[in-house]
Each structure stands twice: as C-alpha cells, then as structure tokens.
C-alpha cells in the first residue's frame, strides 16, 4: 500500500516526534514544577519564554533556531567546536524544532495537574516519615501522572505535525528532515502527486487518532480503576 519511500517518511516522523517528546519531557516537567510551585525573580519572564513558541509564527521560531544553532550562531559554534556536532540539515535539528514547538503545550498540561495536587497530602507523607524526595516520587508524581500522559500525547501530536519551524531551520531534505507534513507539502508541488498526498494525509490522521486513543486508554488505566472502585 505504501512505497518504501513513504514508509521511510513515517519512520522518520515517528523518530523525530518520539525523540523530541521524550527528550523534552524531563525539562518540561521541571519547568512546569518550577512555574507551579515556586515564586522567584524572573518567573514571569520564564513563563513568557516558555510560551513564546505558542504565539510566535513558527517560521520566526525556526529563524531564531537558525540564528542560534547555525554554524555561526552562539550555540551552533559551541556545539561544533566542543562536540563536532551540527544540527543543521539533520534529523536531530528537526527533533529540536519539534521539541521547542511542543514545549509550551507540554508545560501547560503538566503545570495544570501539578497545581491540582493537594499539597496537604505531601505534608501528610512527611509526617509519616517521607523525605521531600520520597514524597515527590510516591505522592506528587503519581498524582501528576494524568498531566504527564496528556503532555506526552499533546507534545507528540504537535511534534509530528510540525512544519514551519522545521522547514525554516533544517530545510526539507528527503530521508533526513522530510517528515510527514513536509512530505505532503512537497508532494503537492509535484504534478501527479495527489495520490501520495492522500495516502500521507490519511496516515497523519491515523497517527494523530492513534495517539489520542492511546492517551485515553492510558488515562483510564491509571485513573479509571480508582474511579470505578469508588462507585
């Protein structure tokens, strides 16, 4: 049904989206925790920075990434000279662009569920002998889990749909940075590409729906059991 080229596009999209979301998750959780629980100077600025990719035109985000991570950019030059790594025109760059675009959604989802935790439960855990760290792992994190799962799904869906920042930052290179949306865009430019566009578009819908169904199932599995027993 799909050509090897199309399978390659799907595999690349899954790789880019998966790596982007999993690498972002700990950072996004830390940011969500910081913003939900702590008052510190610069909090408003940090909050705004995290949300910036949500409100900026994606092309601008991609251009900013290009400036920062390009061969003469501050981060790009540093990565190049210390690690010999360049993200330019690589799938890793596509993953970075996807991660930056997914970050605000992931932080928002987790922040909401962290803010929803009854902090008195953490106090109760402390009186029972739990260190702050133990209380975090056994009380706070499990109670924030629905938000973490929601963040994973939202972030993944956003990542595999990423277009503007990706094409600006790492261009549209077959086999390297041409993810699903970029492939659809390319196929649209080719005479007679409609059949491929249709197949890829259907695949996009299937992947997004699959992510949604998976998240519903995960949330039910973690939360549903408690609810059912409560009846």
């Amino acid at each position, binding site marked *: 049904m799909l050509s090897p080229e199309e399978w390659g596009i799907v595999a690349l999209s899954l790789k880019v989206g998966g790596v982007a979301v999993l690498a972002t998750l700990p950072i996004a959780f830390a940011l969500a925790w910081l913003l939900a629980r702590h008052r510190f100077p610069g909090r408003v600025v940090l909050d705004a920075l995290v949300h910036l990719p949500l409100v900026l035109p994606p092309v601008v985000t991609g251009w900013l990434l290009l400036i920062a991570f390009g061969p003469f950019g501050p981060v790009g030059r540093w990565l190049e000279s210390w690690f010999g790594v360049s993200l330019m025109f690589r799938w890793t760059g596509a993953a970075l662009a996807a991660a930056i675009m997914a970050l605000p959604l992931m932080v928002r989802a987790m922040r909401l569920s962290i803010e929803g935790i009854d902090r008195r*439960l953490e106090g*109760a855990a402390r*009186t*029972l002998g739990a*260190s702050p760290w*133990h209380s975090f792992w056994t009380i706070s994190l499990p109670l924030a889990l629905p938000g973490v799962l929601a963040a994973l799904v939202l972030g993944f869906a956003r990542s595999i749909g990423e277009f503007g920042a990706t094409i600006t930052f790492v261009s549209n290179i077959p086999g390297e940075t041409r993810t699903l949306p970029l492939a659809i865009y390319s196929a649209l430019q080719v005479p007679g590409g409609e059949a491929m566009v249709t197949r890829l578009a259907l695949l996009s819908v299937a992947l997004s729906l699959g992510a949604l169904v998976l998240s519903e199932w995960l949330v039910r599995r973690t939360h549903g059991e*408690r609810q059912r*027993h*409560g009846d």
Partner: protein
Amino acid sequence: MAIDIDVARRLGDRSIAARFTAGPGLTALFGPSGAGKTSVLNMVAGLLKPDRGHIRIGDRTLFDGATDLPPEARRVGYVFQDGRLFPHRRVRANLTYGHDIVPPAHRWMTFDEAVQFLGIAHLLDRWPHSLSGGEAQRVAIGRALLAGPEFLLMDEPLSSLDTARRGDIMAVIERIRDELKLPILYVSHDRTEVDRLATSVVAIGE
C-alpha cells in the same frame, strides 16, 4: 514521655502563641474555632515553622533556636481533620506508607496488629474515596500508628462524623490512650469530646 511546647508565630494579622507541657494520656487543646489550635499542631508536626520558641519531646528537641527537625525526623503521628488519605493508594498501601519508610527499630506495632486493633481487615482492598467518614478516620489512625510515632497529634478527628460514628472513634481513641499508652495532643472545640477523652486540658484563646 512529656512534650514541652512554647511557640509563637504570626500568620497574617493573627498572632498565635502557646506555652504548655503535655504529659501522658490525652491533652486536649480546647478553644473556639480560629484560635490557632491547628497551627499549634502543625508547628509540633514540623509543617509550620514557629517564629520563636521551642518544642521538645522527652529529651529530644524538635525545634529551638538552633534545631529545626524536618517532619519526617520528628516521630510525631498526625491524624488530620479530613483523614487526608492518599487517593491513589488502596487502604492497604495507605497503611503501609509510613510503616515501610521508617527505620524498623521505630515500629512498635505490626501491620496485622494495627488492622485488628482498628477492625479494618475488610477495608484493605478498598480505595479511599469509597470509604465512609468513620472508616477513613480509622485508616488514617492506623496509618499514623504504623509509622511508629512517639506522640500522636489529632486535629478534630470527629468533626466530619455523625453521632453514632463519633462514639466508635472515641472508643478507639480511648484505647490508644489506655492500651497503647501513646500520648496524644488533641484539638477540639467540642466540650463533650473533651470531657470524655481528656486527661488534661489546655485552653487556647484569642
């Protein structure tokens, strides 16, 4: 085991101060709502830091100018007004929460003893929000006892219960006082509770 408390703390425009010693048995902190009784318990538990003063249990200093033990090092059990059970853990896992963390030498009651003492064997596989108020309060008491406390704090543990359940839980509290000989600091604004349960009474006013 006596507890020696002299604490003061400003909370907004209120200032809370208390100075008393509580010996064996049940010491009731008695006073009107809003007098800061719960704040005193929170300071003993380590959940609220006094501005000044000291808190000692026996020869252990929990708080003074130089010392401020974190809650987990105080060995003070706390039964909250609302039970405050962990909603994502079944009753069994709520009971074992502290029991499994504290050093084995601190435990003085086994899981089975606690379950039998409180009559909650039939509740072990239930989720907290399927429990009635009285059942939840028994589990909360069991959870606190199993963490091996040297002192028990109880913050109006009967306030969310109907009259029949109140009698049940009061009987449990009496047995903790008399059979387990665990000293209890008990907050209440209810005269009848205090008359029935208290070994001594400390009045907390405005």
